[in-house]
């Protein structure tokens, strides 16, 4: 069971860029909001480390897929918000298309299509 979780985390980490872009598609977010969205989606487990995310933001910004700007919070720390760019949206779409195609191939190779599920029940 533990091994299964580790594998899922690996797979998830491989798609960190796309996941962050996907979160930002819904609106501008700052680091902790992005982290929380991912954490809540994975059922509270820290599948993607904060440290990984900071490196991801830096890379996405360098490639022009997101833009960063500081919020105008008056108390506490000022938050650094990220906004997805047109290039980011295009990359997100093409990454999602790649993932869907890959998932279809893996599903079929693992006999997870409907016909084979019947076979597995037997």
């Amino acid at each position, binding site marked *: 069971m533990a091994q299964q979780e580790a594998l899922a985390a690996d797979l998830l980490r491989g798609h960190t860029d796309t996941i962050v872009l996907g979160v930002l598609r819904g609106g501008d977010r*700052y*680091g*902790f*909001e992005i*982290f*929380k969205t991912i954490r809540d989606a994975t059922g509270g487990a*820290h599948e993607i*480390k*904060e*440290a990984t995310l*900071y*490196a991801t933001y*830096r*890379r996405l910004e*360098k*490639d*022009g*897929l997101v*833009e960063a700007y500081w919020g105008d*919070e008056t108390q*506490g*720390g*000022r*938050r*650094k918000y990220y*906004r*997805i*760019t*047109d*290039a*980011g*949206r*295009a*990359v997100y779409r093409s990454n999602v298309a790649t993932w869907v195609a890959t998932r279809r191939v893996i599903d079929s190779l693992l006999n997870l299509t409907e016909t084979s599920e019947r076979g597995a029940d037997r």
Partner: protein
Amino acid sequence: MSTEIHRLLDEAFAGVELDPQTQDLKEEIRANLLARVDELEASGATPAEAARRAIDELGDVRELLGGPDAAGATAGEAAAQGSEPGGRRPEPRFDATAFAQHRVRPRPAFVLRTVLFGVVAAVALALFGLGVTSLVSIGVAGLLGLAALVAVPLGMLTADALLQETTHNHPLPRQRAAGFGAATGVALAALALAGAFAAYPDDTALVIAAALLAVVAVAVFAWLGATQTNRHKAWTRSAAEQLSPNRFEEDPEAAARFGIYTVVIWLVALGVIVALGLTVGWWWGLLAVVGGLAATMLVLARMLFRPRPPGG
């Protein structure tokens, strides 16, 4: 909320040299830590506990700073600063391999659509021109129909082009592309209505409609421009960074001088136009326009693409 988290953050960054980028990262982390501490305290942790847990979850900040990206950027900057002592940058070079790797060929269907839209608009524009100059009697309704046949295909052509992935750019999202296409169509319609008004000066409704459409087009373009984000591909951006900046970017004073020269050239040209117009006839004023344009281009060539003095 205690100040514990700020102390722990300073501790985590102790011994790290705070250049602007690191300072930036530290402030970003601070806001995120504060949000996490709030969350932990809301779920019942004591302030000290919450601060300790939040900072533990962050891990070693040195890892964040020593990422491959950071190292690459620092090395690159150092190389750029330290390379040529005379202040000359390495020659800009067109990266043919990167271009070939990212090459996107236009789709045949897109090329065909563009040609068809273009042909329709060109024919309509030619007929519109004949109608406005009263060489062919078309009537206001006919002119408006032709205006639509110019504006709509060219608007669609614009939107269609922005939706295409190119070698350098990602496609624009559908809504934005449609917005640019619509604004282009509206702007062209405004121009056409103004043209129709020139042919039928009695019809004031034409000029009012033209003004309204122009305002709408300007507003939509302004909104699109203000909300525009990057659409260049990553390889385009890194290629652009490697190119040396042009003279006006390196030397803003030269750019300012060029601006003043341009104003002077065109003031002189305007004076010459008036003088020629009042003496030998207004059509001769065009000569002054041609002269002004030529002078501007020569100054631009001399100032923007300055010949390198021999020996650097």
